[in-house]
């Protein structure tokens, strides 16, 4: 029940988060100085926090959205199934976010 508003809130956050994606692509297309400025921001504490939040919002919204697919197809309406889907999206979103960041640091940190 409470998760349906989280789905919406993460959606709204991602809406504004696409500005980060656009900014990063534009900087890559613009040249070295614009790109290193973006990298400097993303590497700062605030930048890392925002990108971490963006990662979680994206992955949570994805899993929560898959939950909606299951409902759209007409399954998962029993009380225990709804609970399982909801907790799955919540825990899965946090788990995947941590996993992606571990892989990111393992792969990207060495470069």
């Amino acid at each position: 029940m409470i998760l349906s508003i989280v789905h919406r809130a993460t959606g709204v956050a991602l809406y504004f988060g696409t500005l980060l994606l656009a900014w990063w692509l534009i900087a890559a297309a613009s040249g070295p100085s614009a790109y290193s400025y973006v990298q400097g921001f993303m590497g700062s504490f605030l930048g890392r926090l925002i990108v971490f939040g963006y990662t979680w919002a994206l992955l949570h919204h994805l899993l929560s959205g898959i939950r909606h697919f299951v409902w759209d197809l007409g399954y998962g309406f029993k009380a225990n199934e709804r609970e399982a889907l909801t907790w799955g999206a919540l825990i899965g979103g946090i788990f995947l976010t941590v996993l992606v960041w571990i892989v990111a640091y393992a792969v990207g940190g060495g470069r």
Partner: protein
Amino acid sequence: MSNARAKSMRTPLGRVRNLGAAHSGTGDFWRQRITAVAMTLLIVPVVVVVIMLLGRNQAGAAQILGSIPIAVIMLLFVIASCWHMKIGMQVVIEDYVHNEPLKLVAIMANNFFAVTVALASIYALIKLSTGV
């Protein structure tokens, strides 16, 4: 039966049937699902691309983003996400903004935002691919 509205041979019920509260049918509902499925399929490749780019300088990033398969993955993701977020934000606006003029302004601003973000990202990706 002499007024302009009566020119159509469709009955009033026939004109509104299947349109629902949005007055425009289920088109946006369906497009939101298509774009959602598209992004579900694209999320793994997109995350892989982003991880490939971490820690690289602009020249390295531009080279990777400029390769055709990666550019196509990113283009598809940008188009699907901007379309999806435009529909999603419109639903949020329609749910919470009940002042009619304000609602129209908000929906217009939403369209401008989504199209601008999409076009700016698409332009950047094409520029990276063509190396101009």
